[in-house]
């Protein structure tokens, strides 16, 4: 660890000279040593099993082992979005040969950088060409080539490449590839074994299929979150924060719908390849959209509307299905506590009671709160969490975590990226 220094920051200019790896060296918390982990297994009397895992699983050994998708060839073409990129990176990480195809001008994602700050872009060692961090992070195990499918020669090249491919990932606009003679319809004629997967925002067909603005701008992720009810259902309600000041529908910090679509695309692709190789020898057309893939995992929200016409409301850091299962403010941040079964529920209480004896009287002795299911009622959540927060407000995250860990409760503070890394 470098020594601590006093730094004076009056403007952003002052911070620029602080942006160097020497100031914040990696790793902040290094990966654990085998000895350290051994002790942990020892405590649980699973030392021998721990040793077996140690001998077989360490990340450092992965390059001595086989790759599961070795030999599969993937073409990935698309702009702007993370869905097809994430799918390609998953396939690449499992050992497939992935070729990312960009137009000669490059994917505009390369230019994106937080708040437009060029100083956070990285330069290629050879050419000095700058690239945004997000793009570098998603571009895992992928080769980069350029090809313009607008030109006739480009289309010919694409077809020639597709002859060799097992998978084509299409992250372009609806029908774009098809219009240029390089969509599934045409490619499947020259390569019937091809699995072709479109990764769209809301779909390549249907009344609300992906749109472009009059000026050619694409629809990108938070649109998926906004049109499948994710954004409406996420965030703090009016009862907790005023509208316009935090009490609003909220999008996820990242383009999470794209990630979800990407992983489902990869799953569907591998399933289609399995069917091809095991049974039929035929490829097929697949379509995954960000809005629908996220809707697929939106708990039961829309099914609930079908059950009794409930429209899910926002519940902030609380979960309407479980008690306790939430985060609430504590002295220096937020503390998450989880444990619904009777065993955990009473254990949480015993922990809190040590500092705050009223908890037992108010919560454990409330006859309404004795039944697991009943505890999920809204007023039960309000009561439980109000009293829990009364305890939390006097302690900070580390204290709360230690106390709860003593009782083996799955609890943890909200950590920021520097605390996670």
């Amino acid at each position: 660890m470098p020594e601590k220094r006093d730094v004076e920051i009056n403007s952003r200019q002052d911070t620029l000279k602080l942006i160097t790896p020497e100031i914040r060296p990696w790793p902040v918390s290094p990966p654990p040593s085998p000895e350290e982990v051994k002790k942990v297994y020892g405590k649980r009397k699973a030392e021998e099993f721990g040793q077996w895992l140690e001998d077989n699983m360490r990340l450092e050994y992965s390059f001595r082992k086989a790759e599961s998708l070795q030999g599969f060839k993937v073409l990935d073409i698309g702009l702007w979005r993370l869905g097809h990129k994430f799918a390609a990176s998953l396939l690449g990480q499992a050992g497939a040969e992935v070729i990312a195809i960009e137009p000669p001008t490059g994917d505009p994602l390369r230019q994106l950088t937080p708040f437009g700050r060029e100083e956070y872009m990285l330069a290629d060692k050879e050419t000095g060409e700058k690239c945004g961090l997000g793009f570098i992070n998603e571009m895992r195990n992928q080769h980069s080539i350029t090809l313009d499918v607008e030109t006739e020669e480009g289309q010919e090249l694409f077809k020639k490449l597709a002859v060799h491919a097992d998978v084509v990932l299409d992250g372009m606009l609806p029908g774009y590839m098809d219009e240029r003679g390089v969509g599934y319809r045409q490619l499947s004629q020259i390569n019937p074994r091809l699995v072709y997967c479109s990764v769209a925002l809301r779909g390549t067909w249907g009344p609300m299929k992906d749109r472009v603005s009059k000026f050619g701008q694409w629809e990108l992720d938070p649109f998926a979150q906004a049109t499948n009810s994710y954004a409406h259902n996420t965030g703090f309600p009016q009862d907790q924060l005023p509208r316009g000041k935090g009490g609003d529908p909220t999008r996820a910090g990242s383009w999470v719908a794209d990630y979800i679509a990407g992983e489902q695309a990869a799953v569907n692709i591998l399933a289609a390849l399995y069917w091809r190789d095991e049974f039929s020898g035929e490829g097929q057309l697949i379509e995954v959209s960000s809005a629908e893939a996220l809707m697929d995992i939106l708990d039961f929200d829309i099914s609930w509307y079908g059950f009794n016409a409930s429209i899910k409301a926002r519940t902030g850091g609380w979960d309407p299905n479980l008690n306790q299962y939430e985060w609430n403010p504590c002295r220096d941040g937020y503390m998450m506590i989880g444990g619904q079964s009777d065993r955990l529920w009473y254990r949480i209480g015993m922990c809190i009671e040590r500092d705050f004896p009223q908890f037992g009287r108010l919560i454990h002795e409330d006859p309404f709160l004795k039944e697991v299911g009943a505890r999920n009622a809204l007023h039960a959540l309000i009561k439980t969490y109000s009293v829990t927060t009364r305890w939390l407000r006097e302690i900070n995250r580390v204290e709360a975590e230690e106390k709860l860990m003593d009782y083996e409760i799955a609890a943890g503070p909200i950590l920021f990226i520097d605390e996670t890394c």
Partner: protein
Amino acid sequence: MAGEIRPKSKEELEEMKAPYEEYCRKAFDPGNECSKPVSLNGIRWLSCTMYIFTPHSAGNLAELGAEVIKIEIPRMGDAMRHTSPFNEAYLYPLHDTRPMTGTGFGFMNANFNKYYLSMDYHIPEMRDVFYNLVRQSDGLTELYRPGTFDRWKMSYRTLQEINPRFIYVWGGGFGYGPKVFGGSYDILAQAHAGFASITGMHDFMGGHCTKSSNWVMDWGSGTLIAYGVLAALHWRRKTGLGTMIEFSQVQTSTRFTEYAVPLYGRFGIVRQRWGNWDTQLCVHGMILCGKSDFPDAENPQDKHDARYVMVSAFQDADFKELCSVIRSKELYEKYRVCKDRVEAMAQVDIYTALEKWAADKSRSAVAKVLTDAGILASPVMNDREVYESEHYRQRGTVRWLDDPLFGDVLLQAGYSAGMLSKTPRRVNWIWRPVGADNLTIYRDLLGYPTSKIEEWYAKAWI
């Protein structure tokens, strides 16, 4: 020649000439999934799982046609069966000994098409039964604390001796490392690994770290397990060997933070929340409008919250048009260049101007004016609107299912995880009561006599 395409028949010629939209509609043919084969034909998967994360991994396989046997605790079942939003949505019964207890909607969507077996596998007498299942299966997902299955002689160390083709997944919270025994939930992964720290309004907007409405890290991780399993299946086709995957859930939360990790690693900058705006594009965010679309509705979600519009005009031409729609020439002059608009203070400026313009308008009016001007805008939809949306209905991703046990159930999942033209996913049933398939599996698959099964049942071993 590689590039040449010649249709072989008249039908094929017509198919080639149809508009793309029509072609897709026909290729995916929503509603007729069951007339096509399944992808994972013949795969049998065991699932010793609970909650959402690990069940969803097996659920994905079951939707793709694998035969998934879910093994639950006798009588009680998966803890998720006792979970329901505000304790109000249940389907009955849970088990034949508990007709007054239902299965809550929390169990929905992760458990389609599974077979329901009950077994108390830590009873030594049941272990052989379990081994017999392993001999006939392709793999297993489990979520117990590390070492638990090993103590019961059911870990990969033992099972690979019985069945070398076996693929074994341990789905845990933290995975390898000092926290390996720490339990995990979706909410813990969101909180502990970065996702929550970038979701929600920034301090200056008055907000807090915000939990995703859904158990996004459970579901997302479950799908990633399914991906790992399928990759392992492909590798097994080549080598005949299984593998064991040790899967850590919290990593998903870190992986889903875009540039946050490399940004921190290189520059020591900690990514923060940025509310409903975007850190890399502007205009690309959700704005508040003055009036609700349904001021007279009964449901408060319609009445009070139908007020938000997602607006996107980050390219120069779009932004210029947007400024002309809201009649603010100064705004355009000030932020002509894309790069200037994305700056933090510029974003505050721009979104404030947009919300000021929308302050006397309803959500649908704002969306319409912008869309008519050729700009991308869309109302922020609630569950009712998604249900009523023609788009999802036509695509078959929101549809009613006539469940064999429970009757009409509205589906939002299964079909929405992706369409496959030749081997589509499908939902045959949402779930069955605890142990509903005991007889089929213990008697027909494993060959135990009914008397034995009844004996186990009486002892509550199954």
